[in-house]
């Protein structure tokens, strides 16, 4: 059983389009995250949710809108995609609000043409 699963794994789209990435965790964790990994492998936090409540919004353009329908799901919707949005997006979860061990999904590689 996959602990943190993301779909789709690959996404290729044109500039200006809108796309979504879905994430689900079956670990019973309270906190979920979205991280962005650029072409230099740099990992940066975008958002975190604790029990469906947004607790971190890391100066991300408002074209990015996370949604957490319940504590096991955290989706990421991106409007008006730009070339610079091309990256690998990782969903993660942890038990508890702070840090602790993060469990990552396999990533969703977004390519904007």
């Amino acid at each position, binding site marked *: 059983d996959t602990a943190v699963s993301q779909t789709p794994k690959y996404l290729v789209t044109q500039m200006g389009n809108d796309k979504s990435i879905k994430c689900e965790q079956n670990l019973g964790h309270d906190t979920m995250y979205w991280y962005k990994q650029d072409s*230099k*492998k740099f*990992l940066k936090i975008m958002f975190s949710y604790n029990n469906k409540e947004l607790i*971190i919004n890391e100066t991300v353009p408002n074209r990015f809108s996370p949604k957490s329908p319940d504590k096991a799901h955290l989706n990421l919707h991106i409007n008006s995609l730009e070339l610079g949005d091309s990256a690998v997006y990782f969903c993660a979860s942890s038990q508890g609000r702070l*840090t602790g061990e993060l469990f990552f999904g*396999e*990533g969703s590689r977004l390519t904007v043409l």
Partner: protein
Amino acid sequence: GESVGLHLPTLSVQEGDNSIINCAYSNSASDYFIWYKQESGKGPQFIIDIRSNMDKRQGQRVTVLLNKTVKHLSLQIAATQPGDSAVYFCAWDTGFQKLVFGTGTRLLVSP
């Protein structure tokens, strides 16, 4: 093939050698540190963590050393194996419920 990670610091070792990967962190208030391993095409995986009240912690074949005076963290891997080839990241908490990742280091293990 991928062009990502071309500018990533790289450590090349022979199988069986000991590896040391270093990390400088920026937040002197951090009290929790983690090392992650990321294999190609996968998400980062937890290796070992350490709290600021310790300066050394050992796991299976891995040891983390913490020097708070100079804000330096290192990961030692004993008897490195080809399966250890990956990108390694240190991470630290910022005190604001956020984990920040350092620049990764690519470890290449030759048979």
